[in-house]
């Protein structure tokens, strides 16, 4: 059954994308570690960290595409799941510091020591074990998504209302995590990590391994997402997106299906967050900011909604652009970014990938038509949503 699921999930695009990702997972670390610095193919360490970060963003965008592209749930709060996953990983990394903190307290992280906390709060227990933290990386976002979705979908909150309350959720979490009383380091968040699974987090090898892990995890998630959307279940999801009431009248349990997708997507976002934190070295409440979640939507839209590969390309492209422009035109890059969003919505409503596939499809159609009938036909009008 699993093989069937996997086989179905593979089409040419996905195979190519996964192959590219796996190749990157091998090539980038290898070139960084093995090639001499002056080699033209050498990838400098800062680029490894940078691309590693992009890959985690890409995973987050993929997670969003699953719910938005295929299920019609526009979540403006996916950053919250990402951040929660990140915090779970951050707590593990914090506990790994042990007595190497500035105050030398073996148990308490530094920020608790100088705020005079006497003992570790209960919700920090267990995070010294990697397996527990890894579990929490998926369980906490999953649980939040489950509870949130269970209420929201059952009450049939949808459309913009759903978007706005997901925004309220991430905003509330932002404020909560800002509070120093919460025990998550307040505004500073968690930082100053030393090592992960016993490896120095700043070592080149660890960075390369984290990059590879991100690429592999992205490939894996792509496989799962593709499996979901290509299954019968996925077809129903698209049905829900386009006409929820009809699907409900056909006898499907719409709420359950939405809930399942939402939870899976939240877990993916959590994993993305967990991979993000060790690579950037800090997790703080800023990740909960509603603006961040909106940006994820934008990456997805730029790349192409409901294309699975699009969001990956979108995330890498927008963030790559950000990196370049913040360095080249520090004063003007926001104009470029803003103009990009406007331009994409106006001229590429289906995103980059969507537009390219559309173009190729219409070319093929045209050629087919041309060979069958000599009369050229106009581009088919798009069906309204």
């Amino acid at each position, binding site marked *: 059954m699993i093989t069937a699921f996997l086989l179905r999930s593979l089409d*040419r*695009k996905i195979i*190519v*994308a996964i192959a*590219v990702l796996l190749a990157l997972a091998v090539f980038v670390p290898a070139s960084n570690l093995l090639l001499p610095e002056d080699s033209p193919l050498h*990838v*400098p*360490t*800062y*680029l490894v*960290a*940078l*691309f590693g*970060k992009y890959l985690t963003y890409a995973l987050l965008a993929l997670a969003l595409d699953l719910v938005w592209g295929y299920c019609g749930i526009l979540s403006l709060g996916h950053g919250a799941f990402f951040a929660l996953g990140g915090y779970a990983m951050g707590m593990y990394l914090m506990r790994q510091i042990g*007595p190497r*903190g*500035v*105050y*030398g*307290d*073996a148990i308490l992280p*530094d*920020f608790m*020591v*100088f*705020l*005079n906390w006497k003992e570790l709060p209960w919700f920090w227990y267990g995070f010294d074990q990697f397996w527990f933290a890894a579990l929490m990386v998926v369980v906490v976002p999953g649980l939040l998504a489950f509870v949130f979705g269970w209420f929201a979908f059952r009450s049939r909150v949808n459309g913009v209302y759903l978007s706005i309350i997901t925004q309220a959720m991430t905003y509330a979490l932002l*404020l909560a995590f*800002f*509070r*120093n009383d919460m025990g998550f380091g*307040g*505004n*500073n*968040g968690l*930082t*100053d990590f030393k090592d992960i699974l016993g490896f120095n987090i*700043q070592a080149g090898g660890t960075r390369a391994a984290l990059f590879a892990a991100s690429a592999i995890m992205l490939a894996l998630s792509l496989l799962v997402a593709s499996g979901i959307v290509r299954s019968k279940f996925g077809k129903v999801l698209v049905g829900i997106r386009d006409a929820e009431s009809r699907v409900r009248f056909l006898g499907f349990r719409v709420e359950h299906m939405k809930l399942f997708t939402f939870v899976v997507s939240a877990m993916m976002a959590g994993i993305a967050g967990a991979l993000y934190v060790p690579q*950037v*070295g*800090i997790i*703080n409440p*800023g990740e909960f900011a509603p603006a961040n979640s909106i940006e994820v939507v934008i990456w997805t839209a730029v790349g192409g909604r409901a294309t699975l*590969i699009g969001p990956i*390309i979108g995330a*890498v*492209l927008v963030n*790559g652009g950000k*990196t*370049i422009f*913040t*360095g*080249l035109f*520090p*004063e003007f*890059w926001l104009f470029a970014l803003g103009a990009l969003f406007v331009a994409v919505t106006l001229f590429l409503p289906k995103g*980059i*990938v969507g537009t*390219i596939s559309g173009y*190729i499809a219409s070319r093929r159609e045209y050629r087919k038509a041309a060979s069958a009938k000599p009369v050229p036909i106009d581009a088919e009008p798009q069906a309204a949503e």
Partner: protein
Amino acid sequence: MKLKSYVSGALLGAIMSTTAFHGAFAADDTIKVGILHSLSGTMAISETTLKDAMLMLIEEQNKKGGVLGKKLEAVVVDPASDWPLFAEKARELIEKDKVSAVFGCWTSVSRKSVLPVFEELDNILFYPVQYEGEESQRNVFYTGAAPNQQAIPAVDYLAENEGVERWVLAGTDYVYPRTTNKILEAYLISKGVKPEDIMINYTPFGHSDWQTIVSDIKKFGSSGKKTAVVSTINGDANVPFYKELGNQGIKAEDIPVVAFSVGEEELAGIDTKPLVGHLAAWNYFQSVDNDANAEFIKTWQAYTKNDKRVTNDPMEAHYIGFNMWIKAIEKAGTTDPDKVIDAMVGVSVPNLSGGYSSMLPNHHITKPVLIGEIQDDGQFDIVYETPGLVVGDEWSDYLPDSKDLISDWRMPMNCGNFNVAVGKCGGKGS
């Protein structure tokens, strides 16, 4: 179908090569200085000024012929008030642009975010803002005030000169106010203030509705004892706070507010008439009356082509930090960060308040503490100045876990958190 993967591959490649090439223009005959201040996002409001100040200082230095016979070249990036982006940009500055030192950061979280990068790549960060202390890092030079260079003298002034017996510690809920208030609370109690005479209040960032809190302060102040507010409220939230104070009729004569994050730059956005007499504690005010400062203000206003541009304390901190760095380079004869770090300790340069500041072994500096009252033109009148220079104390003596720690980056100690109680580096030890 294959086209897409080509496209995505090509795009990745394009980004890689563009980012890589961007750095390749670097000419070797200049010394590069990284400037890491947010030019967009929420912190742009404070940090943009510092970027301009740095560009001015570099330009002035180049007019004098640069340093070691080479010109300085500024590399400006925009970390966009996004904390992880600070780390990424710091790495880019050091690895790609090969800067010799970085001047930057404002918020504590941005500093915390870049710390590991500076440690790993062994470069120098000059951090120009007053902060909560509890940190000393080999690669960082803290040119802003530690809590004992701002908060404690201010409280002393109020207690002695205004006879304040009741204290409201109001702050934004983040690490600087939290720590400063912890220190102040311990300090006040050690001075015999009763715990019920201290009220502590935290608000979120950018808090704009101060009605309830101001009326609470009013209520707290109506107990018959002289009351003052010690404000660690962060930049943006100050304007509505002061406006509400003014409107609810809380005059400085009744309940003075002493602020640690309100300087000339912040006041430039407020009508200060209702605020006359409220206080601020800094190590520099634009109104300091001496030739060096007059010269600095003149250069700054000429550089920004605006004769109303104000100067402020973090700018002075960059001024001191930059001059110290230049001096250390001359002393070390190289821009190699590792050597410059060692040469920095002991360097002494004139500050703008009419004296000299020197770099201490704990990478903090000596500064005078000034207390000023707000005037109706948005400037401060200095009403008190510490008799001598105050030595920056990174590990507060008023916090139980940090009172045994000291920092000394000279050999042989070379440690940022040496515990004098157990006699070894690394805090409590275990």
